[in-house]
Each structure stands twice: as C-alpha cells, then as structure tokens.
C-alpha cells in the first residue's frame, strides 16, 4: 500500500559537453604568480634550466576556458549527480549525514596547510585528534592500538595481510603458513588483498544457517593456516553465533584472526572484536563513523590490533609522552613498514572524531538500535510487495542492519531484472540500491540499508517507489526495462566496453577510435 505522496521529479539536465569540448582558443582560467624581475635576472632563461632532452615540445591539448566557465561546468556536473540529494539506501555503505561543521573545520589552514614532515611540536593539534580518536576506537573494540594509514577498508584488509606475513615470518613459519581462510560472504577485499600479499585463499561457502559450519572451518584449518579474515555480521545482516569458537579454532592452529567490521553499524556498543578473541579489526571511518565518502574516498580503514601485533603495525604511530606531548614514533624492526605514504587521511579521521563526539556512547547505541529497527521495519513492508522475497527465508531470526532480498520471482514472471528496477527507481529521485557482492547466491538481489539517518518517511517513500515500480513491471514492463526516463541521461547503450577497439578511458582515445577521419 502506497503511503507517500509521490513527488514530481526530474534530474537536472544540462546536456553538459565534455570540458575538452568547451575549449576556446586563448581563454585563460588561472594565472600563476608572475616571477619577480629580481628572480628572472639572476636565473636567466628558463630553457637553460632544463636539460635539453627533457624540454617539453609536444603541445598540451588541455581546455582553454575562463574561470567562470570552469566553475559553471563543474557545478553543472555536480547537479547532474543525484548522490544524497534524494534517498539513497545503498547497502554496505551505511549512508550517513556528514555534519557540515566538519567541512567548515576541515577546510581551515590548520588542517589543509599542514605538512606531514613538520616538526611534531607544530602539529600537536592534528596528533591529538589522531590519538584521542585511537582511544575511542580502542574502547569500542577492546583492542590496543589503531592506525589510520590505510586509505580505505580494502587497504586496511591489506594491512592485515601484510601483518600476517610479518608475524609468521618473525616466527620462521611463513613458508609453511601460506593459507588465508575467508568466507563467501566476506567482502571481496579480504581474499583479494590476501592474494595480492601472496597467500592462497580458502573460501568457505555458506551453509543452511547462513554461514559456514564449524565442521567446514575445522576441515580447512591446519598448520598451513596463516589467518582468518571474516565479516560478522556479513552484508546480509546475518551474525555467526559461533564466531568465538571459530576464533579459538584458528588460534589453536596458530593462525591470526581479523574482524572486518565493515558492517559495524548494527552492532556498535554491543560487540567488541577483542571480546570475541580477534587479534585485529577494521572500521570504516567514511561509512560507520560519519566521515564523508567523496564518491569513493579519500577514506580511512582504521586498523586496530591487540598488544601482540603492535610491533608489526605500519609506522609511524602517534604516541603521547609523560609530559602530555604527542609525537610520531618510527616503526621498529618487526613493522610492515608502510602500505601508504604518511599517517592517513587526516581530514577523514577528524570528521570521524567529530561525529563520534557528537554521538557519544549513548548516541552510538541509539544509532545501532535505530539501524536494526529500521531494517526490520523495512522488511515487514517490503515482503508485502508481491514479487519481493527475502534471501535465505528459512532463517527466521531478525536480521541486523541489512537484509538481502530477491526480485527473482518478479523477474521470472515479467522479464524485468533487479537492474531494470534500480534504474526505474532513479526516475523518482531514489538512487541505486546495492545489489550484492560477488558471488551472487540469491537471484536478482538487492540490499537496502536504512541506517540511522533516513526518517521513517524517507524509508516509506523508498518502499513506495519500489512497490510502484514492481507494479509497473507487471503492467508495463517495457516502461521499466527502457528506464530511466527522468534521469540525466538514458541507460548505457549496447557498445561492449570490454572490447579494446571500443573502450575509451580518455577523450583522445575516443576521438581516435570513433572519429578516425578527423
């Protein structure tokens, strides 16, 4: 039953050309400072300052535009991006409000104009934020130390893979311990980073309880086991109640245990990595902790570990001395070194610290409660829509902050797929839902996550739009299959972008491939 008054919506359409197409010969957008005559007279001709073989001769075909034209172009493109302007329940990414005050703070010179190699006496403020936020995460996880070097969740998984290497190498066991165990429902970054670090991957499939069995784990654990890397809950809201047992099994075989806390939102203040025996965990500051997402970073995967693994952490770490001053401590011999230059995306840590202080511990608990409540509220309404079914329906316990649904029945009847529905929903100002990570084990999947941000009216609106589109799928499937109709542009055409003669990641490549006469 539709509860909301459906608004008229159409995306902004500026029919905006490429910036390269807007170029007009001789226009200028920026003028670098003019070199003073005192400098010029001392250094002479620029040509002579550059080795002859390295002087640029080839022209640079960049756009020539006035500053206003550049500004207007990119503003048009921002308006042609739906983002958080409508409703986005993009599952696994925990869409949150990013308090604007954080932008006000983060864009002041005491953040933007700081250099990582400054004397630490002059960066006490930055270091204090990093240190204090580390303390908050220690409390939330029970672990002993956090670092922020990882430029995202996958990069934090990579820290785990590198620490696993260094840890076993330090014990002389690395040649033997070359296997990392994960599950089919762990985020792809876990097996991918572990493989890139040189490990063999063992992926346990889901079983009827919604997670792999203890027997399946026992069957693959051995003296080759280097580590376990898992999400819990996974991204379909299922919590493995045997996780403590899992950790014990892997520990007794000599492996490390890493908790990918990408789906922390529903269990904040209830579950702590250390209490479950994990050696390390990762939090997504750009997701769970309110740092902005930027359309894919800059992000931070905060990596925390137990005392045992501290010597292996990438450097430098932020410490506080007895006088209360903060300093950067270089890594020791056992450290993995670096996964990325410097000590992290500081503005994102700043936003996360700010968000966490805004919330306080009670606020975090409220947010977790609301996230899970909202998901269960959604479930009642979603399952009332004909054609929508729940993934793993035999599991009756309430899911946490996300549930994966299937449009398989609807697709079988109408030929309309989850991608078609997703596209059509954008015609109502409702942005894409998350489908599923690889591998797909539910046909035509979709995975909404309401989190604590979206109001009950937003959630209702989202569900209403889905219901309308499902009805359209039955009554007018072509309308859905040919959607979107109210978006910036239509759906991608039939050109195969995996064909080397057809793909074009730059304008120059496009011109060469598509306009050979020119």
């Amino acid at each position, binding site marked *: 039953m539709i509860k909301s008054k459906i608004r008229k919506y159409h995306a902004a359409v500026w029919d905006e050309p490429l910036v390269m197409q807007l170029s007009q010969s001789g226009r200028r957008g920026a003028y670098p400072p003019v070199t003073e005559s005192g400098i010029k007279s001392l250094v002479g001709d620029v040509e002579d300052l550059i080795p002859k073989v390295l002087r640029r001769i080839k022209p*640079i075909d960049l756009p020539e535009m006035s500053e206003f034209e550049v500004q207007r172009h990119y503003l048009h493109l921002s308006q042609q991006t739906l983002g958080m302007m409508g409703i986005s329940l993009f599952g696994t990414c925990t869409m949150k409000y990013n308090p604007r005050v954080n932008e006000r703070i983060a864009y002041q010179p005491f953040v*933007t104009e700081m250099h990582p190699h400054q004397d630490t006496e002059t960066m006490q403020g930055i270091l204090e934020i990093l240190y204090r936020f580390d303390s908050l995460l220690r409390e939330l996880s029970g672990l002993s130390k956090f670092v922020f070097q990882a430029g995202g969740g996958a990069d934090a998984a990579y820290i785990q893979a590198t620490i696993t290497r260094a840890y076993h*190498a330090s014990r002389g066991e690395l040649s033997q311990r070359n296997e990392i165990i994960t599950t089919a429902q762990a985020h792809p970054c876990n097996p991918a980073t572990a493989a890139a670090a040189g490990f063999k991957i063992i992926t346990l499939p889901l079983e009827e309880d919604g997670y792999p069995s203890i027997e399946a784990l026992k069957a693959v654990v051995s003296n080759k086991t280097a580590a376990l890397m898992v999400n819990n809950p996974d991204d379909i809201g299922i919590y493995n109640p045997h996780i403590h047992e899992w950790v014990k099994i892997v520990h007794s075989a000599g492996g490390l245990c890493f908790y990918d806390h990408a789906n922390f939102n529903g269990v904040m203040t209830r579950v702590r990595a250390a209490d479950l025996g994990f050696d390390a965990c990762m939090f997504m500051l750009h997701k769970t902790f309110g740092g902005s997402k930027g359309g894919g970073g800059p992000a931070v995967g905060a990596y925390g570990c137990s005392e045992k693994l501290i010597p292996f952490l990438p450097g430098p770490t932020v410490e506080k001395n007895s006088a209360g001053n903060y300093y950067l401590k270089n890594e020791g011999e056992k450290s993995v070194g670096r996964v990325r230059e410097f000590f992290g995306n500081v503005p994102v840590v700043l936003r996360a610290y700010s968000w966490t202080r805004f919330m306080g511990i009670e606020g975090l608990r409220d947010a977790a409660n609301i996230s899970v409540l909202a998901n269960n509220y959604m479930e009642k309404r979603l399952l009332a829509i004909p054609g929508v079914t729940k993934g793993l329906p035999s599991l009756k316990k309430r899911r946490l902050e996300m549930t994966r649904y299937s449009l398989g029945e609807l697709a079988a009847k109408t030929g309309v797929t989850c991608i078609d529905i997703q596209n059509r929903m954008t015609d109502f100002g409702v942005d894409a839902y998350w489908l599923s990570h690889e591998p797909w084990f539910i046909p035509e999947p979709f995975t909404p996550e309401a989190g604590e941000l979206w109001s009950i009216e937003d959630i209702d609106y989202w569900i209403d739009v889905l219901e309308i589109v499902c009805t359209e799928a039955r009554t007018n499937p072509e309308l859905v299959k040919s959607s979107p109709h109210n978006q910036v542009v239509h759906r991608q055409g039939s050109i195969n972008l995996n064909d080397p003669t057809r793909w074009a990641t730059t304008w120059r490549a496009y011109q060469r491939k598509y306009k050979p006469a020119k």
Partner: protein
Amino acid sequence: MANTAPESFKEMLRVAEVENIEDLFEQIPNEHKFTGTWNFEPQLSSEASIYRHLKDILRKNISAEDYLSFLGAGCWQHYVPAICDEMVTRTEFATPVWGTPSSDHGRNQVWFEFCSQLGELVGMEFVGLPLYSYGAAAGHAIRMAARINGRSKVLIPASLDPERAKVIKTYCGYKELSGYIEIVIVEMDAITGGIDLVDLNKKLDSSVTAIYFENPSYIGLLEENSQKISELAHEYGAEVIVGVDPISLGIISAPSDYGADIIVGTTQPLGVHMNAGGGVGGFIATRDDEKYAKEYPTLQVSLTETTIPGEMAFGLTLFEQSSYGSREHGKDWTGNSVYLWAVANATYMSLMGPEGFKEIGKTIIERSHYAAKKIGEIPGVSIRWPSGFFKEFVVNFAETKMKVAEINKKLLDYKIFGGKDLSIDFPDLGESALYCITEIHSQEDIDLLVTAIREVTQ
C-alpha cells in the same frame, strides 16, 4: 536521527512487531554482548560545542600558512584555486558513494575528464581512476609489469623517497610467498645525482621485469639519461615505469616521449591541499594497449553512448578484472580510493589549461633556481647538485658543522619550516636537507629564508 523522535520510533516498533529493542539482536549470543562500563569521552551534542572543541585542539597546530614552509618530499604546498575547494565540498560530490550510471552521470563525467586531462599531460591514452598514493601506484605498476612479462625482479633508484620505497617494498611481497618481486637498487651517479648507468648495465638482464625511475626524482633532479635508461631496459625486454610530478609537465617532456611504458605519479599537486599527508593520491597511465589495460587493478570509466544515438554515457570498462568482479582472481585489489580528489584535479587542470601549466612550470623552476643560487652563496652552505632540478634541491650544511635537525629547530624561531632532513635516510649526503620551492614562494619569502639560514648558521 529523525527516528529517535518518539512517534517515529513507536511506529517502527509497532510495524516491526518488536516489543523490546533487545529482541532485534536475538542473533547475537548474550555472552558476545558487551556488558561492562564504557570509558568514553562525553557527548558534545551541540554544533557550537563541537566547533569550539575541535578549534581549540587544532589551534595548537602551526600551519604552512602561519610559517613559511620549504617542505616537499612527497607532499607539496601548491596554491589550491578556490573553485577546487568549492567543487570538493559540494554535497553532491562529497557525500555519495554509488548510484546508477545515469544518476551518477555528472560525477562519472568528472572522472572521465580527470583521466582525459591527465592523459594529455603525461601523453598516454589509457588512464585508470586514482589510487591511494604515488607509492601505491608505483607498487601496483611494478606488479602489473611482473604479470605482463612473468619476471620477478625490479630495479629502483637509490635516490627513491624512503617513504615511497617502503610502500613499494610492501607491494613487492615476501620471498616465502607467491608473487614475490625482488627489489634491486641501482646506485646513484654521485656527479649527476641520477641513475648510475654503469651500475644499471651491470644489473640489467633478462630476469628484470621493470626499471622504475622518477622525473623529477625524490631529490628533485631531472633524469638526463631518461631516454637512454628506457632504451637499455627495452633491450632486455623490461618494462619502463616512470614516476612523475604532473605539475612539471608544462615544461618537462612527458615520460611517453622518452620511452615510458607505464606512467605513475602523484595527483596531490593538482588542486589538493597537503592535509598533513591526507591529500596524497596516485595514478597509473599507459598506452591504450590490451597488454597493459588488462592488468590494471583500478576501475576505469569509458566514454560511450546511451541507448539514444549521440547521447553521452559513461560506463565501467574491464570491471571483471577488478577485485569487485573476481575477488582473489582479480588484478590485485581496489576499493575506496581518493576519487573526490579527482574532482579537484579535473577542475585544476581545466583552470590551468596549456598556458597555465607552462607558466606554473616556468615560475616554479625559476624560483627554485633563484633560491638554490642564493642559499648556495651562504658561507658553509652548498647546493649538492646546483642544476638540473625542478622544484626541490639538496642543500648541504656540512661546513657549518651543524646538524640539519639543529638548523631546522632554529629556523622555527624565524617562523620557517626548513627542508626535509635527509641525514638519516641518505647518510652519504651528510648533513643535507631537501628544500622545496613552488609558485607560492615569492622572492621576498626566499630572501627571508636565506637571511634566516645565514643567521642560524653563523
């Protein structure tokens, strides 16, 4: 949180058929639940209080706007045009993650324009979406080379940034595990500061997957033998990977002109603030050749058409080879990166245009040479390589009998951040520091620096 309002909360409980909030967590065994007391900093629920609190902490910083900074070494202070900041703080760009190709059209177009413009600067037609950092890009590029030619030894220059070198080392792995790449350091030619060709010749053979070098190098120098190095490497079937600072490319040749196969570099100088190192970003660019394209670890956007002929669309190309598409069978891995900075980078490159890049290159190289000449005139202070650099150069203080650390401490009294101390990472260079000059440094700033160094070293 809208739904904490009592009416909304009650309505959700009612529909969800939940009496007690704790019932929602029935999947979690009680013994897994934290029951202790929290030692947590108190809540600051008011925006005014948060603002005050953060400002009180951050005011303890002294920034490179408060003092004159001559620090570079992997993170550089360039001027960031106001509209770059405007774009990256636009809520449409700053807060989302993924939509559909149609609803993300504007953002995807910016990404394509980032790749296209960067491709113009470096002279390559295939460019991936940005990576975490310069070092991460170099690390991935070396692994691409190893997958391409099946070899497992990389040559890197002795002058490499120790910070970047550590990242590369991490990416090259451990010999006990698969995919390990041995790192061999090519010595520095003490006279030129560039790669020692004799040593390179000695170390190059058909087991080398790639040679990696940079223009400018960490110590600021332009590699005069770039072409020769590429040719030598190609003779042995090795890939040539060149790291580059794109802000130099208005006046310096694109690496594609001297034989680079894979170009990597930093994106931070193009309109992104230093952010205490949180502004770094990287890129990978190559020829538009399947051999390279099919080894990219990144996501890539391609220009194409919608179902309506002539209407522009952007789609992902080669998604299947990413870790999202193929988990551990993908090409390394990808994830959140620094995509928002691509918005700043695209804006910056459009603003600068061809003339802007030429002019900024010129003014930087003029200013840095002026600074080097003036600093080199100070008694006891010398410039290790007085020519052939771009924006950074090595200053040697040996004859002052002072340590760089001591000089830098004293320069703080003049409200100056001196150059990066090289004495620990490069003991052969003695008491040396890497000074960085950009377009933001006026003649007056440089003269102030010179006076300060003169006074503290007397």
